[in-house]
Structure formats: C-alpha cells, structure tokens
C-alpha cells in the first residue's frame, strides 16, 4: 500500500529568475516565453512518487519576486516544510538576492525547513555569470541542497523536487510540524506513521543533476 505525505513548499527569489516557469514545468510540463510577473503568489499542487511508491504531494506557493509584494513572503513561508530559492545563472545579482532570502528563512522560518538553492536558465549557460562552484560552495557552507535547472528545456526540474521529497522527514508526526500546518501525512490512506520509508540523505547533499 502506498503512503502519501503532504508538504508545503515555497518558491522565493528575485523577479524574473523563473520561479513560475519552474513550477509550470514541474506541474504541467509546459514552458511559456512570455509570462506575466506573478502578483502576490500563486498556489498549485503536484504529487511525486518515489521509488518505494511513497507519494509526496507538494502544496506549492509560488511567490512574487517583485519588490512591491515583498512583505507578503513571511505569510507564505510561515510553516513551509521546504523552500526552493531560485536565482538566474545569467544574473549575479539574483544570487545575492537568493542569499538574502536564505538568511531570512534561516532566521524566520521553521527551523526544520529544507532549503534548496536552484540556479535556473541553465539553457543560457553561454551567458553564465554565476559559476557552479561559487553557488555550490555557498550551499554547502549553509547546509543547503543545490542544483541547476532550465525551465525552458526541463533539465533538472523534476530532479530538484524529487530530491527535496526524499530529503523530507517522512516520519514526522503532526505535532512536530507546528500545529495543524502542512507536513502532516495524508490521513486518508491510513498510513502507519511508525513504519516509514527511507528518509532522504543527510544535510548538504546535492541533487542529481
């Protein structure tokens, strides 16, 4: 019998780095060259099935990168189980912005939050401004997952979400996750909470990409 878990995932990052594009690729396997910048936030869900048939349902909160909606972020990452902080590999300033988001998460979010740093627009590596080494080093120092993606080609997109799913503590009882907030295993399938599938690897691991 398969087990289903539900997790709240928040995407953060500077405007235009491709957060919404990543979600669109992940959820609908589509890409759109002209996307309207996100207003406030968009909410989507997508389920990934792990090798052991465990399913993980992500409640994805795709936030707006524009400054004018910046104050909204705390209400979205509050109680998030995981965060994907996105930067654009062709814009070094976007990594700086990503770093500041990570600092904010480390200060304000749930201490157990799983954070992945994601360099997007891999298809534009010719115009790369952020080297893999630089980003990877920073991620290791901070104990983050790290990977590069292209929402346009789809490269690395599902990997990053799958890695997060594996990394999440699939054993956590509801009470450990801040009241009634997400992260609670789906009750409908009658999961035995004490008999869990293998949890992900240790902290600092990078995804397969």
């Amino acid at each position, binding site marked *: 019998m398969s087990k289903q878990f539900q997790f709240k995932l928040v995407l953060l990052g500077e405007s235009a780095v491709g957060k919404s594009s990543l979600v669109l690729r992940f959820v609908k396997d589509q890409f759109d060259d002209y996307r309207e910048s996100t207003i*406030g936030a*968009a909410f989507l869900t997508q389920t990934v099935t792990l090798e052991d048939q465990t399913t993980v349902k992500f409640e994805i909160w795709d936030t707006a990168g524009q400054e004018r909606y910046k104050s909204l972020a705390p209400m979205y990452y509050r109680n998030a189980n995981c965060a994907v902080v996105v930067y654009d590999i062709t814009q070094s300033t976007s990594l700086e912005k990503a770093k500041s988001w990570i600092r904010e998460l480390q200060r304000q979010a749930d201490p157990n939050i799983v954070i992945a740093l994601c360099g997007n627009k891999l298809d534009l590596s010719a115009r790369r401004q952020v080297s893999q080494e630089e980003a990877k080093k920073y991620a290791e120092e901070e104990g983050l997952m790290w990977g590069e993606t292209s929402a346009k080609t789809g490269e690395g997109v599902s990997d990053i979400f799958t890695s997060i799913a594996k990394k999440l503590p699939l054993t956590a009882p509801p009470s450990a996750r801040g009241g009634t907030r997400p992260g609670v295993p789906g009750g409908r399938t009658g999961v035995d909470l004490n008999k869990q599938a293998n949890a992900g690897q240790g902290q600092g691991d990078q995804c397969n990409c």
Partner: protein
Amino acid sequence: MSKPVRSPTEVAQDIIRPTEEVKVAIDARTAPRADADSETWTVSEHEPPVPRRKILAVVSHLQPNGKHEQGCVFVLLQRPPRIQSIPDEYVVEHAFPVLHNFSISMAQPRQTTVDLSSPPPGSTFALDQPKTELTVTIKPGEDTPFSSVTLHTTDTQGLRLLLDECRRLKEASTAETDDDYDFEPFAWIAPYVADHAVPPLLSSIPPDLRKLQIPVHARLSPASAGVPGSDLSDVEAIREDWLRERMQKEIFAVGEKARLKIRIGTFNVNGKLPSQDLSAWVRDQITLPASALIPPLKEISPLSIGEDRKNPIEEQLGWCLHPGNTIPSGIIPPDSSSLAASSDSSASGATVVDTISEDTTVSDQPPDVPEDPSDPDMLVLGFQELDLSAEALLYSTGTAREDNWCMAVFAGLGEKAVLYEKLASKQLVGMLLVIIIKKRLRPNFTDVRTASVGAGIMGIMGNKGATAIRVSFTPSPSPPASSGSESRPTALAFVNAHLAAFDEMYEKRNVDFHDLCKRLVFDYANSGDDIASTGSWYTPAAVPLGIFDADALFWLVNLNYRLLLPDADVRSLLADYELRDENFRVLRRFDQLTTAMRSKKAFDSFIERPITHLPSYRFGSGMLTDGLGYDMKRKPAWTDRILHMTSRAVVVKQESYTSHPAITMSDHRPVSAAFELEGPAVSVAEYESFMQRVWREVSGIEYAEERPRLRVTPNIIDFARIGHKRTVTRTLEVANIGKVPCAFRFVSQNFAADACPSWLRIEAMAGLVLPGKKTEIILTAYVDDAAAAQLNLGNARLEDTLVLHTALGRDYFVAVSGDYDRTCFATSIAWLVRLPGPVRALQAPSDLLPEDKSVNAPREIMRLINWLMSNGTQTDGLFLTPGDEELVLRIREDLDTGEEFSLEVTQNDSKTTLAFADTLLRLLESLTDPVIPSSLHAKCAQITSRDEAFEILDQFPVVNINVWISLTAFLHFIGQRESYQTKIEHLIAIFTSVLLRDDLNSLMPVSITGKRNFLRYFIG
C-alpha cells in the same frame, strides 16, 4: 366675532381661481321654505336660528385664445363655523353656465316679473327703493341637469349690475358659433362643483398605509417619451402626494405634537394560566423600592390553580379589579407629591364617547399614584394559545381565561395598576388581544372597532388566525378650548395573529398573511360611537375599514416563522456568546420572516427592529433541552414578533424590543416592544381650512384648457467626474410660466429603459408647481455597488437624456452626462485579473486581456494584503473595527489609479491600518461573486479534514485559489499573534460571511458552522 364681514366680491374672489374673474357678486338668502332647517344654524341656545349667508356671483372666463368669453352664475354657501379664529368659508352650492337657454329673472313681490330671456331693448329698471326685498329666479334651461333656484336679495343696485352682466355674457355665448376654435365648453366650471370641491385628504378614512409606503412616481401609469400614460390619474396621484407633503411641512411639522407611549406585548401562553409575575413584560423597569411592590408571584404550583380555574393571584390583586376595594397600603409610595399634573383630565374638552369596552370594574377614584413619563399610555397585549382545549375550538368558553390574564397583567403593573383600565379586547379561540389604557386618556380614545378571522383547520377555524382592534386617538386640545377645536384623530390598528406552525409551512404562512390582511375588516357596526354627534369631516366613517386604513398599524404576533439554518447550526450560533452580534446578523438573515419581507412575499414595507434577544421559542423542561434551555426536539426560532407600519403623518420611535426569559410558565417567552408615537395635534378646523385653501390652488388641473407651461433650466447637465460611492449634485430648476398648476413626472425615453439612469438619483421623480412658482429638482450622481458592477463593464463616458413629462402638456428633455471613474470595487475577480493595468487606465472593455492571458491574482487585493503585512500586523482589531470613511476612499482611489499609497503611516497609527483592513474587507464584500463559488459551498461545509480542504481547492477557478490562499495565509499570520487568539473566531465568522457569502435566496441554506469550519482549516 370681531372679524369684519367680508364683502360678497371678496368672498367670491377667494374661491375663484386666477383663470376666472368675478364680475359681480351680491348678498342673497334663500327664500323661506319648509326645509329651511338645513340652511340655518344655531349660534347659541338663546338666539334664534340665523340663515346661512349666500352669495350670488357672476364669474367670467376667457378662453386661452383670448377671444371667447363664457359666464357662469355661482351660488356660494357659507359653511357652519367651527372655530372663531378661522374666517368664514364658502362652498359652491350651484354653478349655472350662462348659455342660450339660461335665464335669470327678478321680481319685486307683487310686481311684474322681468324676464331677462327676452328683455325689452334698452330697458332699465327703476328699483331704487332701499331695502326692498327682491326675488331672483335662475332657470338653467331645460336641457341642463340643474333645476331652478330662487333667492332673495336686498341689494337692488348690485342685482341690476348682475343682470346686465348676465345679459352681456349670454350674448357673448351665442355670438361665438362662427369660429371653429376647439375647446370643451364650460369645462372650467367642473373644478368648482360638487365632488371636486372636496380635497381628497379630507376623507375620514386614512389612505391605505401600503400605498403610502410606495413613492408616488412608482404609482404612476406606465409612460415613456411621446407615449404619455394616463395623465388624469397621474395628476390625481401627484396632486394628492403634493397636498400631503404640504400638509406635512406646513401643518404637521410646525404644529403641536401629541405623544403616545405604546407598549406592545405578544405571548404564546401554551394553554397555561398565569402563575408568575408579568411585570417584566408589561412594564419597562421597576423604579420603586422593592418593598413597595407586590411580592413576585413566582413558581406557584399549577396544582394550586384548582379545578375552578380560580387564579391564585386574584386574591392579592382584587383591589385593582374590583370597585370599592382599598389599596394595600404597602404599595402606595409615601411621597405622592410627584403626582403628574398631566393626570388631570378634567379640563379636556374632548367628547366622551361610549365604547364597547366592558366595565373594567376599577374603583372610581384612582388613588394618588405618581405617573412616570416612561409609563406607557397604552398597553396592547396579544396572547396566543390562551386555551388549547378542544371545546374552545367549538364554542366560546367564556371570558374566564381572559379575566385571569388581565388580572395578571394588572398585577404586573404593580402600584401603577390603578392608573389603568381596559379599553377593549377581542378573543377568538386561543387568540386574545387586549388594550389597556391610562384612565385619564379614556376620553381620547373613540371609535373602537374589533375584528377577527379564523385561518386554522379548513381555513376558517380559530385555532389559527387573527383578532384585531382599531381605535381613534384624539389628542386633548392644548390649551383646552371650545368644542370646535377638537383635534384631528389618529387611527391606530393592532393585529394579534397566530399563523401555521412548523418549518415547512413557510409558504402557507405567507399566504395566510395576505388572507388575513384581506379578511380582517372592522365593521362599523362594531363601533360604539355615535357618528351624528359631531359635525366634522372626521366623524368615524360609517363604512367597513381594513387594517391598513389607519395612521399606524402594529402586528403583535406568533407568526411561527422559523430559522432556515440546520438545527445544529442554530443552536451553536446561539450558544456562542462571544460572537453574539455577528451570529445574530447571520441568524436574522435566515429568519423566514426576514426572508419573506425581503422577497416581498409577506409583510412587505413593514418595519421590524433588528432582533437582539434570544429566540422566544421553544423552551423545554427537564432533560431534553440544550444549554440555553431550548427543547431539543424543536429548532429554536423567533416566532413571536412585533412589526409596524405608519403613515407620514405619524412618527413611531421604537424604544425597545426584547424577550423576557424570566417568565418561564410557557414554552414560549413573552416578547415586548415599547414605542413612542408622535402625531400632529392639529385641530380639525385648522387642518380642514388649510386643506381647503391649498386644495383650491390645485383643484381642476385636469379641466383647465390652458396647457401647462414650464421652463426647465438648464437643459444640459454635466456631472464631470462620477465615481463609486461619491456624490455629485446638480440642480434642475422647474418654473411654471403658465397659468395653471402643473403636475410633472420623469418618464423613460422608451419602454425598455428606466426613467432615471442607474448612476443618477432624481429628487423628486414627480411633483407639482403652481403658476408663477418654481421648484428645484436635485440630481445626484451616485454609483452604488450594483450600478458600479454595470458601469465598470461599459464605456467610461456616461450620457443620457432625462424626459420630464408634464401631465396634459409636453415633454421637456434634459441631457445628462459625466465621466465615470472606474473602480476595482463591485467587479469580479475574473474581470480584475484581465486588467492590463490599473482599472482607471482602462479606456474601453475591449482593452481587457484575453482570458488565457490574465494575471494570476488581482493586484488590488494583493497590494492591500502586502500593505497590511508591512504595516498592519501589529495593530489590534483589524477587520473588527470599521475604517475611517475618508481614508477608505483615499485608499480605494490609489488602488484604482495604480498610484503608490499616499497615506503616510506612522508608529501606532491604527487609524490608517484599520482603514486598510476595512478597505480590503469592503472590496471583497463588493465583489459580484464570493471568492468561493456558491456552487461549492455545500461541499466545503461538509469537509472534515485539512487534506480534503486543500483538495477541494482544485475545483475553484485558479485565480480564486490564489486569492483564497493569500487571504487565509494573512489571516493565519495575524491570528498567530497573542492578541488575536481571542479574536480569531470572530475573524473566521466575518470572513465566512464575505468569502463564502450566504445565498439569501436559498430556502435550504448551507450550514454556517460547516462553512466556518472550512475556513478554519486554512487559518485556524
């Protein structure tokens, strides 16, 4: 009488309208005849009868073409004087058109009759003897419906002139055959004669109250530009409204007021006999020390009532019901010096009239009991289920139970009981209506009539139905004066009804209501009054009257209307004391009576004050009750209600509306309401004389052959910028430049349109202007939510044409225009996300983004939440405290224009943050559709886990999900704060009402607690 006698010409001129001219007028009197009595009156008992003065006048009328002149001989008759301050008044007794076969002749007794119809050429009459009494005979001609009249006069000089004038006019009338000028000959006389001479407002029957609730323009005939409706009936309606308005402004509003405190109660006693103190129900508060009161009669065992139904409290209370008994000394306040002066009624000049009231067996001399200004003048109590026995249904079981309850009521009045007496009562099986009044006001109540109607088994039995009482209240004149100055009475009607029980009988109750309205008729035969005793217009009408033929109508009823929400919902909403206000708002929304009133199915236009007391039904005893004492087997409901409706002449202020939970002897709790009725205390004479005078100005509009002419300025009105809930006012001046009064109304350009565009208000939509006068019509551009919802979808440039139609005249056109400032309010989420930029920048609807290119969420909502996240999370009471109106408007303006918010916010500036929160709430409320589509509410309400709750989001439109998620995330965020722990439930209640807006048209509403639970999964 110090007034100088007015000359005949003066009198005649007073009656004649500007379109006519008095040529000659002389004094005359009736030739003595056998039936002369009706034409005399007695000034005082000691003087012989004086003949009523008559005036004979020749009046001429020039046709609008300026050529044709017509004449008419009027006989004016003096009306009996009523009060000395009012000048003598005259009515047109006869009006004889001077036509070809008209003749007027005079004779000196025993002298030759001179026949004017064939006068000798150039003849004159040598009638120079002073004080010679001459006889005048007027023969209207065989082909007229009038019969001839003979009068006497001593004014020989005047009579000669009068005859000359008649001859001249007669020649003029026969000379005009050569012209084909088109007019209705002598139509101008019509307003002076018979029926038309009585203003409609002088009827002793008040107009139907229901009609008065509808503005006059809504009662006019259907019409549009170029297609007039029924102008004649419209004139009548507009004119009557105008008369009423003038009466209101010039007589009622400025004159003395009479106040009457009416306390109304309704109590379904479930067949019980009184076993408890009723004072809480029958009197407001008890201000006297407890020792001065009758001991409360609590918890007397029903067993002690005994077989003979002798009421246990009777013995204690006998003093106030049986003559000769002395008052227990304990209840007389030691200090009675505060005795109200007003209790002295001996000076009242009003006539005491018999009524149908039973002998109330009260001791003749009321002891000195002080009156409080708060004491009701009138107690009107309705009982239902007085007697549940089967026999009661079949035959009258006597008045034993009525007596029992009346005794209990008087007992409840405590030491004040001696001030009161029963005026009237009406019982039908279990329904009893009792009116108790202050004794000193007894002379002020007349024309008491009762009615009853069964609507129970087979539609006629009295287990359900209504009883009703109608009384006239005539305020005492102040200062007390002669009998001529009695006041105009105010008619009050009270209905005690008991309608079909059970939740599902909703439609039946609505039908019953209309049935009762029709069938409750107050027969004149019921009244104990003698109509012939007074000579005023206000003698009680000797006709049957309906319940709406009154100045004020009250219903005190067990309507059995229930709450539409599920049982568990009702109980839990009632039980939550913390959320009482919000929950009551919700419950009231789903009360069947409120629903019926809203949908105009029953009690349309009645007023009921919003209920703030717990439902009065149904209480149980023992195990099967909930925490509030309600019977578990019956859904609690506000079955016992008090409603009213009034005419413009009276103002009713409701001071309280409550139930009395301490009185527990029945499964219902009694309900009471205190009213203060304020009516004009104007004398009948003053009223009538005013009405006659004003009537003269406007009677006969429909007979004028002059076309009404107006000057309407300006004819182009630009409102410049028009915005949502912003008021822009312009004035239209309507001047009557013609010779006749002009009734006007606005009509639509065509039958498909409204007379007034949705963004405009016209004050007034119909009216009347006298010749030479002008009136201002106020045009107010105001866009409410409903209008904004339409205007947002159309072009920003607003242009329309108003059509002002003059009855029996032409149409005038006024072009109105403005530029609409679009707003994000009163739109839909789906529309907002198609905006390419700020809403104000949208030129035309075609500029909207295609649906598949719409943005993920409305900017306006997200901007507000973002602002609140930056500045408002430390403020207490967000969404719970209303925002400052002006600040809300400024915030909205920035949202609409897309500008940065211009409001500065400083530390601890809760005023600004509360305004932002309120703007968000109002924006959500104004949306044409709730954030969660109505079709999903039922599903949402059944959800039992967080996972399910998130799953159902998939069924929302994407944009709605985003709005929902962000709003609930914000509420969750602020709900985490310590200070919100106690308020979160309140926020949930408020936002459920907004985001899962109730469907008010549903008779099977979705569970409120279910909907709140759903929201709780996201923010709890």
